[in-house]
């Protein structure tokens, strides 16, 4: 049996009625939190307490609760997805905290990710970046070629796959001092740039996606590397170098 304990914590949670309201940190005491519960389960417990007290529950995004949907964004104690590494908030457990701890919970902060309510931000900017070029066009004429018919070098296949594990959570943006989306865009550019199927649209893809990211209000990249450290999927900075290479080549020829 693991040492399942109950801890008492103090939470400082960002509360904001709507996009236009001025928000503030509210302090809540929460007792008897099992160290085996996930951070989201702890938030559920807080919300139950708030509802029982007649207050309004804290709004937060979540869906899969197993680290694949990328929606559970919370800036916890000064880091995206909290203190553990290679994890999302739903994969963070309360055993990462001690009895008596004060825990700050804030939404992602970026001009391009406006707060909708409490901890929920609008991440549709990522969708628009994807729509600007994060795809491969195919004719669905009924005789589509089998993708596996094209040989792909193992290293490239692996790197493309690694890039494709990006779940679009936005932790990279949240961690970056410039709220830059470089790691996200680089992952989306790389997953195609490394594959033969991605070559046809490669130039337009990198030009349009990078342009869209800037248009959305994400900042420039200072190469601090904070994104790579905080990314739940360990997306590598080498993708950003690849994106910069691709962008340079594309803008010189297109």
């Amino acid at each position, binding site marked *: 049996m693991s040492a399942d304990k109950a801890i008492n914590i103090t939470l400082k949670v960002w509360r904001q009625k709507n996009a236009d309201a001025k928000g503030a940190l509210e302090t809540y005491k929460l007792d008897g939190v099992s160290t085996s519960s996930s951070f989201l389960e702890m938030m559920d417990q807080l919300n139950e307490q708030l509802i029982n007290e007649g207050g309004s529950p804290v709004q937060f995004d979540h869906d899969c609760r197993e680290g694949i949907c990328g929606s559970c964004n919370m800036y916890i104690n000064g*880091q995206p997805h909290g203190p553990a590494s290679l994890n999302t908030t739903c994969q963070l457990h309360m055993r990462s905290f001690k009895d008596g701890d004060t825990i700050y919970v804030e939404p992602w902060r970026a001009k391009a990710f406006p707060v909708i309510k409490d901890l929920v931000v609008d991440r549709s900017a990522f969708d628009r970046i994807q729509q600007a070029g994060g795809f491969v066009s195919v004719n669905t004429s009924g005789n589509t070629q089998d993708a596996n018919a094209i040989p792909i070098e193992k290293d490239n296949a692996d790197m493309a796959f690694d890039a494709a594990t990006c779940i679009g959570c936005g932790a990279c943006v949240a961690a970056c*001092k410039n709220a830059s989306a470089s790691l996200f865009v680089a992952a989306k550019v790389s997953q195609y740039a490394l594959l033969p199927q991605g070559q046809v649209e490669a130039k337009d893809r990198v030009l349009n996606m990078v342009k869209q990211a800037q248009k959305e209000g994400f900042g420039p*990249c200072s190469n601090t590397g904070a994104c790579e450290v905080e990314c739940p999927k360990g997306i590598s*900075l080498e993708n950003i170098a690849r994106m910069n290479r691709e962008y340079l080549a594309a803008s010189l020829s297109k």
Partner: protein
Amino acid sequence: MSEAKGLIKSHTVKKYWMGATGLFLCLFLVGHLAGNLQLFLDGYEGRLQFNEYAVFMTTNPAVKILSYVTYFSILFHAVDGLVITINNRKARPEGYAYSKPSANSLWSSRNMGILGTVIFVYILVHMQNFWYEYKFGETPYMMSEDGQSPMLLDGSSVNGGMIENGEVVKAGESLGPAMRDLYAIVIESFQEPILVAFYVLGMIAIAFHLIHGFQSGFQSLGLKNRKYGPMIDKLGYAFAIVVPLLFAVIPVYLFLVK
């Protein structure tokens, strides 16, 4: 046309310029350091060699072109850096109540603008100290070893010559500009402990700037990858420590020994 406009305005392109000018300035540092290390040479020979080097640096046409590229790089790098820093801030109008950036990044990587500003002030003071003094100040003149004759730019001494308005004059006839004694100004300047401390501080700023900047320049230009990336990181670290350290040792040595 609209594409070209997008190119100038692109964050990515601004970072290409940042990386290219920054790495060019790293090359410049190596050249500058090689010149400065001549200050360790002793005696009259050392003084003469350093002053001849100063003549070379101010008269050689290739060096002239290179020096304009350097001035341009510094100014462009500073202005581009300012614009980038403003854009960096704009992307997060509302900050976090509690943030722990030290958990995921180096201090120097987050403070390149501040470090750059310190370096910029350092460069201005440095230019005033030596470049301005050498060109327009009351610089002493280099004399032959016996201290009797003035010298021409090519290092030849003129027996019985006089210096008038910066020219070597003999028998009422000007033979050309007189060699100045930059070595003497350097030695004299670094008898001032505050200036020595200021130079050391400037070099510390450069060291921190380059601990992040060297590899960052390669990353911005897309020149890092799995194979060479780790090597560039190590080289950058070594460069960021060794080059500013050697620069900083010079004023300290001159203060203590001369």
